[in-house]
């Protein structure tokens, strides 16, 4: 079983639209994992049935019992996150600031602070319209620990692929280079970098590739909206050559991507022959790179 992770550094380059197209092409061979748990969109194109759902708990939140609290203020003094507030001599923890480190719980002389488990979101296993399955999630608003939820989604998808003898797990990653991206990359067989020929597209590609390199993961790259800027397209191709990143193909800027999204399907269902062929050949290259 091979794990393919789609990332981009920069947002809005077309990661999810392309991941959805590959999921359609892969059909029953592909278990999909939507690891962009912060702004998950894959479900809008895959029509999941939410067959199984589970709460996800991660991390802790300090809660002060006002009846036991003596108002000594020790918790407030030691908290590095300024999460303890006092109003009318009542001490309270701001749940958005508290990181759940448990320092205050440990040192409270009145034993008035409890560390409670936080509900950080929900995750689902769904049947999708490709005939395969998808693992996806919804991070609770403002929650941290998205990296841990990503790990959970990915591991569930891997288990599922193993049970169903699926050859591929296809992961839709999140933008950036921080904890959710690091979490989605760990253990991957191939990173597919989706970029666009813009000055920020290249800048962000370089940063995310530096991360991929750190993990020693093989990488391929798709230049999306390639005809927006010929000069930037050339610069990105050079970068790919220099870094020995496999150039998977160039895709044109095409409003059919948006139109298909509006219709709730993928470019394969509303695009013209040329773009369908291009995307199919990219998917074939991805498969051959993982074998």
């Amino acid at each position, binding site marked *: 079983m091979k794990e393919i992770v789609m990332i981009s550094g920069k947002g809005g380059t077309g990661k999810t639209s392309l991941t959805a197209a590959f999921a359609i092409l892969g059909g029953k061979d592909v278990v999909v994992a939507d690891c962009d748990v912060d702004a998950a969109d894959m479900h809008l194109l895959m029509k999941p049935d939410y067959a199984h759902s589970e709460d996800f708990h991660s991390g802790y939140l300090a809660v002060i019992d006002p009846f036991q609290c003596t108002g000594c203020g020790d918790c407030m003094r030691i908290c590095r996150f300024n999460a303890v507030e006092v109003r009318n001599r009542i001490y309270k923890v701001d749940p958005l600031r508290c*990181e759940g480190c448990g320092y205050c719980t440990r040192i409270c002389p009145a034993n008035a602070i409890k560390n409670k488990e936080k509900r950080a979101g929900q995750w689902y296993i769904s049947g999708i319209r490709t005939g395969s399955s998808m693992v996806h999630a919804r991070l609770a608003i403002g*929650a941290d620990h998205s990296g841990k939820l990503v790990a959970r989604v990915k591991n569930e998808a891997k288990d599922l692929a193993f049970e169903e003898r699926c050859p591929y797990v296809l992961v839709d990653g999140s933008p950036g280079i921080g*904890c959710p991206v690091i979490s989605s990359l760990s253990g991957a067989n191939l990173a597919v970098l989706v970029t666009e020929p813009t000055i*920020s597209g290249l*800048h962000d590609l370089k940063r995310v590739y530096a991360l991929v390199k750190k993990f020693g993961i093989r990488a391929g790259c798709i230049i999306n909206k390639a005809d927006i800027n010929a000069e*930037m397209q050339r610069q990105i191709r050079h970068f790919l050559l220099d870094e020995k990143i496999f150039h998977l193909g160039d895709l044109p800027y095409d409003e059919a991507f948006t139109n298909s999204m509006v219709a*709730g399907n993928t470019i394969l269902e509303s695009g013209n022959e040329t773009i369908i062929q291009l995307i199919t050949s990219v998917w074939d290259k991805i498969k051959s790179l993982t074998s």
Partner: protein
Amino acid sequence: MTIIVVMERVSTDAVKIAIASGKGGTGKTTLATNLAALIAEKQEIALVDLDVEEPNSGLFLKAEQVHKESLMKQVPQWDTDKCTLCGYCTSICQFHAVIQLDPSILIFPELCHSCYACSELCPEGALPMAGRKTGDLRESQAGKLHFIECRLDIGEEQAVPVIAYTRKYASKYDHLPIIFYDAPPGTSCPLIETIRDTDYVILVTEPTPFGLHDLSLAVETVRMLRIPFGIVLNRFGIGNEDVHEYCRHEDIPILACIPNDRRIAQLYSRGELVYRYVPEFRAALEPLCDFFLDHNKKAQDERDRDDIG
């Protein structure tokens, strides 16, 4: 177009306006840089790029660097001589950043949240805190625009402390009328850290199903924090009417509509400021500029009146 917004101000510091979006790539940076540069033609202001994982604003501003510093994060350091290997630290750390592998203590700085618990509760004082580089902060200037950006080092997981520090650094411009924040995408901790003390949030979205879905998550987040907000609709003309419908239904003001225009995409791709070349784009931003400047003038007048009083 009239913009009706109520900002409740408690402090007399700069008005802090965050430019955010649930979905990535909707045009946050385009709006932030163009709006800031356009206002800076008349008025001294500051722009802070808090998308520390992928900071891009600087690519468009071509400002001259005036200051650079390394951002440090405090992490424990193991003092072999003092440590008795009691293992208390490993039971304290909630983030699995300190583990014991006999006969030594291993520290994973990327996982450390700098809570100081292990360091201050170690009975032997064998885990003193020390700085470790986690990113770079740069300040630069272009005319009346002060620009501050911070970039997280590759492989570092935690954007939040870096964002917090950069915001604090930027408060040196609190005497200016406006500070803009270019926010990270998403709705999780980096976004919350960016917008928590702002006076207003501009949510940039596009009229597509992904745009709408991620916008609704961002709206939930901003409402939870009780920050007034409005929407800028980018690439107006593609997709469908659903975002408009949603805003009407939820009673959210649409501050500006930026047309879908290949010229804008091309100028962006080259790192140019779009308003300088596309009059329609400039025209879409101008009511926003006027609104923020005008609002600030009123606040300034009140301040002056208070001073006299």
